[in-house]
């Protein structure tokens, strides 16, 4: 070789392992859901739902990666990690993914800004739904204002998370 850097260029005819292609996105979403295992005793809902953010990032970055049912297992895992009633994220994430499918079907062309807009709506729907479920399953009178700041910085955090997912994705598909 003339250029030493070319050693690190992905070689033609080789594919990354199936585990890396299919498993890495699932693992990143599960790690995002598992952030609640950190030893932080929160007095108010402060932590952005990283599982939801990473799921949305992968979905909007790689539309062909998953079908809508992926929201079921990943949502169940998120319910097990967060304090929400079991079934809450299962329902909300699946419905949210089907909604994103429907929007994508209508849209002819979308770019980064439309992605952010879609993600913003999805985050609002999922968090408001989660709040509603928390309220009807014994949460008492939870006010919407309580989750408004969390909603706000989750939406602001989306561009950062989507960048990190893109970075992981570049490594993921490289042979």
């Amino acid at each position, binding site marked *: 070789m003339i250029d030493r850097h070319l050693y690190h260029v992905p070689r033609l005819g080789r594919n990354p392992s199936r585990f890396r292609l299919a498993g890495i996105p699932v693992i990143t979403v599960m790690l995002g859901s598992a952030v609640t295992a950190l*030893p932080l005793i929160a007095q108010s809902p402060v932590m952005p739902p990283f599982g939801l953010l990473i799921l949305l990032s992968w979905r909007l970055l790689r539309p062909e990666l998953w079908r809508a049912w992926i*929201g079921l297992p990943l949502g169940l895992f998120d319910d097990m990690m967060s*304090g929400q009633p079991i079934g809450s994220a299962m329902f909300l994430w699946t419905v949210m993914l*089907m909604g994103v499918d429907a929007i994508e079907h209508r849209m*002819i062309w979308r770019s980064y800004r439309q992605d952010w807009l879609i993600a913003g709506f999805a985050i609002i729907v999922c968090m408001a739904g989660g709040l509603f479920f928390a309220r009807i399953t014994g*949460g*008492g009178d939870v006010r919407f204002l309580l989750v408004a700041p969390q909603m706000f910085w989750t939406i602001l955090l989306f561009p950062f998370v989507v960048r990190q997912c893109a970075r992981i994705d570049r490594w993921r598909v490289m042979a």
Partner: protein
Amino acid sequence: MARPPSRRPGHNRKAQYSLFASYVVAVTGAAIGLLLVIVAIFDPTGFAGIRAVTAEVTRPVSAGLKNMVSGVSSVDEVLAAYWRAGSQNVTLRRQVEADRNRIIEAKAVAQENARLKKLLKLVDEDASQLLTARLISSSSSSARRFARLNAGRWQGVLPGMPVRATEGLIGRVHSTTPNTSDVLLLTDTGSIVPVRRANDNIPAISTGAGDGSLEIRALSAGRNPFKPGDLLVTSGIGGIYQPNIPVAVIVRVQGEIAWGFPLANPSRVDAVVVERAYEQVVTRPDPAAPATTQGAEPGNAATP
């Protein structure tokens, strides 16, 4: 980015069926999820058993991290202590000398107290404490306020047991797994604690506001009797919490509602104490029961 091609399978029958099947699975699963939530309306801890898997797996990680964090979080205190070492030393020495007399007095009072109690034949066995454990993680992304405790069913923790720290009440156990349990914190919107004002027994109900404060409503009719600075302790009504556990201090009064702030901060306390439910402690076993079981009661009361 253009519309992805894979969502439109075209004339390929197999691809069409696969897409359709994926939506059938998704809709069915979503319906099942909704059903689980509806079940949770009537039985909030019903499917919480599923949580045991992840709770047990993440427990060592959380507990290990918690040990590290509690070491790190006190670094500032250690540094501050060095900064003022000289002056602090002098002050503390004076304090110790002043306290020594008090301690001797207190010992005398305690002795006298024990003797008087013996005269009165009062039984005052405090068998309420079950164990001490650490809070290792919490539901930081949810609107509910749960904290995970590093002790569970195998250690004798049962749902409904009150959890307190030396500073005051933390909450009560909501659900248990073999080695962990979820504690419903005092500040959760679903956590209701009967309290009274410490100095004059005015009863009230404390409900969490979800953001770290408490909403306190007096049970007496008429104008709001509370004023900022009032201390609230548990009243013992309801049979879960022992009386006289410090709960909150009132910071603001707004019409009918007084807003309080919990005295014990779950994120600052080092360890918490799980107690037996008050009802269980004060209720004597049936007098007809043999005396041996009565003697063994304090130790075995919580073992399932």
